[in-house]
Structure formats: structure tokens, C-alpha cells
């Protein structure tokens, strides 16, 4: 079965510190990988994606993510967190041969404290 796991319901980090939000996946083939962010009472917004090429992907708002094929992971990172980064983050995966079907993780709530 295809799945995406975000093992942490919540991540707490102090402003200015680096942050990591974890994602692992179980999808056949070489999937496409995404991160989305959701602010309260809003829809999801695209942050970044990995399709092919360099394993380190840079996205919006200073976020980046590292694709690790051997560990089937796609962790979201930021060198220095901001209070405004506090939101709900979703990892998503789609299959290359059926890329219209997205599998979303359960979401991780990021709390950045001043």
C-alpha cells in the first residue's frame, strides 16, 4: 500500500534555530515528492517539490528539503526558523505513472517560539 508518514504530530523550535520536519514514504517506483504548508483557516500552499536531479531542493520562504532514496525520506528543513513559520506542514507523494494521485501525510504542526 502506498503511504506517507510524518512521524511527529508537532515540532517545537525556538526562533532563530534550525528546524526539521520529517517525512518518509512508501510508494512504488520513483515518486514525485512535495511539501505544502497550511496556515489557520486557509488552503494548502505549495512550498517545494522534488522531481529529479539534485537531492537538495530549495523552495519558498527559505525552506529546503533533502531527498534520500535509500531511506525513502524527504525531510523539510530551514536554517533559521521564524515565528511566522508556525503552521501545519504536509508532505505529499505522487507516483510517476499516476501523478495525479497525491498521497498526503497526516501533517506536522510547527510551533516557533519567540
Amino acid at each position, binding site marked *: 500500500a502506498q503511504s506517507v508518514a510524518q512521524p511527529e504530530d508537532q515540532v517545537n523550535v525556538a526562533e532563530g534555530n534550525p528546524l526539521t520536519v520529517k517525512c518518509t514514504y512508501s510508494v512504488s517506483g520513483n515518486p*514525485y515528492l*512535495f511539501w*505544502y504548508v497550511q496556515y489557520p*483557516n*486557509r*488552503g*494548502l*500552499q*505549495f512550498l517545494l*517539490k522534488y*522531481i529529479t536531479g539534485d537531492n537538495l531542493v530549495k523552495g519558498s520562504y527559505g525552506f529546503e528539503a533533502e531527498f534520500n532514496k535509500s531511506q525513502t525520506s524527504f525531510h523539510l528543513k530551514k536554517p533559521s526558523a521564524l515565528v511566522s513559520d508556525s503552521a501545519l506542514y*504536509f508532505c505529499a507523494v*505522487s507516483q510517476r505513472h499516476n*501523478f*495525479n*494521485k*497525491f498521497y*498526503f*501525510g*497526516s*501533517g506536522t504542526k510547527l510551533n516557533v517560539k519567540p
Partner: protein
Amino acid sequence: DARVTQTPRDKVTEMGQEVTMRCQPILGHNTVFWYRQTMMQGLELLAYFRNRAPLDDSGMPKDRFSAEMPDATLATLKIQPSEPRDSAVYFCASGWSLQGSYTGELFFGEGSRLTVL
């Protein structure tokens, strides 16, 4: 600024009533998704359309839910009759895909918050 538009933003109704949610995808996008978000289940894919054709609605309760795209600018999700367990936020998202070409990003609407009493 192109965006996906959903109506209504909030809907409170009584059990047994019909509910219709509407979505206007971004002009030029050919793929539309309907998701349901709840605290317990997270994001669930209900249905998706490509070039207005339904490709997958396996996540949708068939007895009461229906999804259509009467034209390229309108997608609808209907619940009849509604039940309290349908209370959730329903999101529409659109994107672009073409055989051999892919952008990957989905653009989400602001959601329709449904409360069934």
C-alpha cells in the same frame, strides 16, 4: 492573481439536507481535486477530474456524495442527504498535467467549512 475559488466558505445545515459546494479552478488548469479535511482523518482524497472526466472517485461515499464538472470553469461536490459525520472542511484544488509534461503543484482553494447538525 490566479486562485481557486470555493463557495460557500461556511455552511451550517441540518441532517438530511442537500449540500452543494462549488469550485472554480484556475483558468487553464485541467485537473481538479476534491479533498476533505478532518482532525481525525486528515486530508482524504474524494475525487479528481482531468479534462473534466472523473478519473477516480474511490474515496467518495457513493451513496450520498456526487462530484461533477459541468464545464471547465466549475466543479461541484454534492452531498444528499447530509449527515453529521460529513462535517469537515472540503477543499478543491486544481493543477495542470499533460502526458509527458508535469508541473506537480496543486493550487488549493480556501475551503468550504461544512457543519451538519
